């Protein structure tokens, strides 16, 4: 019990910090908007971490899952359907369905081929979105209204939106954690570590990986639903491979050894990006250098930094 608590401490502290943030001087609109964005991307990153760290499936098309969720909001908004009880399940199912269909093919490959094929499917979705003239095509689509929750405009209030995002993030983390610890997750993790051994025991890794891919897709769809509501504007860029790359980077920056790595990575990525962009016009250059340095010197990501420092001190 104590061991579990210790292992989960970073994630719990982070979630608690986010819960307290609005009452500790981070309650202004601008900061809350930023935090909401960070939490939504963290949600997608945790789902991606389930794939990368849990299943060894390095997807370069995870943004497409968010895109499906966001465009579900757009299409229903165009029909003046803004009830979350309808929109959210549609967003989740659309993304999970896309993940299931494309994953069925992609998961037959592995390594670099898997990366390329998920990227290709993501770009297919991206170009499809740019051609949807009815929904703004290239220019994107401004929502008529944020979703309501059972008729109540819960998402319009900044503070309640903050806690809805936090709840969704915490729920995602708990779900991913539960999956990884289950029998299902054990097979998934073992197949990442040693696929031949797993087959020799009588498991075919394919269905386990596919189910994980579809679940991560569904979570991505939920994140897309929230992101659309956060910005009230959706563009094809939601699907783009650059966004997929950013999500993957958050996961790697944070560390793939545990799910809390994705939490830390996503928050660090979004906040650093925001802060740097206010410091210097050419901030992207500096951002790039920082990212390269982190990959070179933090093999286990930000989550592994304390352990790395402790080891360094012991060595003197």
């Amino acid at each position: 019990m104590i061991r579990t608590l210790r292992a989960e401490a970073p994630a719990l502290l982070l979630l608690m910090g986010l819960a307290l943030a609005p009452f500790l001087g981070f309650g202004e609109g601008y900061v809350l908007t930023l935090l909401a964005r960070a939490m939504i991307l963290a949600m997608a990153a945790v789902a991606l971490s389930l794939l990368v760290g849990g299943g060894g499936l390095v997807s370069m098309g995870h943004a497409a899952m968010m895109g499906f969720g966001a465009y579900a909001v757009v299409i229903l908004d165009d029909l003046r359907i803004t009830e979350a009880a309808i929109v959210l399940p549609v967003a989740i199912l659309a993304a999970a369905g896309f993940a299931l269909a494309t994953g069925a093919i992609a998961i037959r490959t592995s390594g670099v081929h898997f990366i390329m094929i998920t990227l290709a499917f993501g770009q297919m979705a991206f170009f499809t979105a740019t051609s949807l003239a009815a929904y703004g095509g290239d220019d994107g689509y401004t929502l008529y209204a944020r979703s309501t929750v059972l008729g109540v405009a819960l998402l319009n209030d900044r503070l309640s939106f903050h806690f809805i995002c936090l709840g969704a993030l915490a729920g995602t983390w708990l779900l991913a954690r539960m999956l990884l610890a289950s029998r299902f997750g054990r097979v998934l993790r073992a197949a990442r570590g040693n696929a031949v051994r797993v087959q020799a025991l009588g498991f075919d890794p394919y269905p386990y990986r596919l189910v994980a891919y579809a679940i991560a897709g569904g979570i991505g769809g939920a994140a897309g639903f929230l992101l659309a509501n956060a910005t009230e504007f959706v563009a094809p860029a939601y699907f783009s491979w650059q966004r997929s790359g950013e999500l993957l980077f958050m996961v790697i920056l944070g560390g793939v050894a545990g799910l809390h790595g994705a939490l830390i990575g996503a928050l660090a990525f979004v906040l650093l990006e925001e802060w740097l962009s206010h410091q210097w016009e050419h901030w992207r250059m500096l951002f790039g250098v920082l990212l390269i340095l982190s990959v070179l010197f933090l093999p286990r990501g930000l989550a592994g930094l304390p352990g790395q420092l402790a080891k360094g001190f012991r060595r003197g």
Partner: protein
Amino acid sequence: MAEPLLRLDHLRKSFGGLTVTQDVSLSVDGGIHALIGPNGAGKTTLIHQVSGLLRPDGGRILLGGEDITALPMARRARRGLARTFQITSVVADFSALENVALAVQARRGSSFRFIRPAAQETALNEAAMAALADVGLAARADVPAGAMSHGEKRQLELAIAIAAEPRLLLLDEPLAGAGPEETERLIDILQRLKARYAILLVEHDMQAVFAMADHVSVLVYGALIASGPPDAIRADPAVRQAYLGEDDIPLAGPR
């Protein structure tokens, strides 16, 4: 005559121009059936074909009378084939217990269960602990497999294989790379296991083979040149010819 547990029927396999399995027919029943032969004789290739890692070019593999030649490895495992690998194959970042519990899980119920933590399933853990105890690793249950010594990993692989409750154990050089003490311990374990499982054993350590095996088959350049009880094999002129010049083969007599 009753159908043997495992029957290989005119098995053939080549890699390009190199024939690695030449019309091999043999059957395995209870006890230890050892497969020996000089380096490059195609022993591991044969085990790979039985376990399903490689597909034969021709011939049939029958497990308990059922033709499994076309089945992939995972489905053969579900029919009761468990194997170890020449190069140890465990999940390095799992503890010893979790490695074995995974094997138990493969036999017991569906693994499409998403809610309950697998590590807290007492039935899985108890069966896994029993298998670890069988190979003398009970005290090392919580050690990550990747941090174990080579000999311990070999023991762990045996525990994984027996935890799957197989009908037939395929052991590919279980003694490879083990030190003298480790070898003795492993032979001890194998002696105990042979009372409970039918074993097809590939092994280089001839002393060990002739001490343990109930039946020995000799493979040379992919072809079976002799098959019979250890004493008959020891006396077989064709076998002596094949091993000519290799001093470490104690064909002269029991140690």
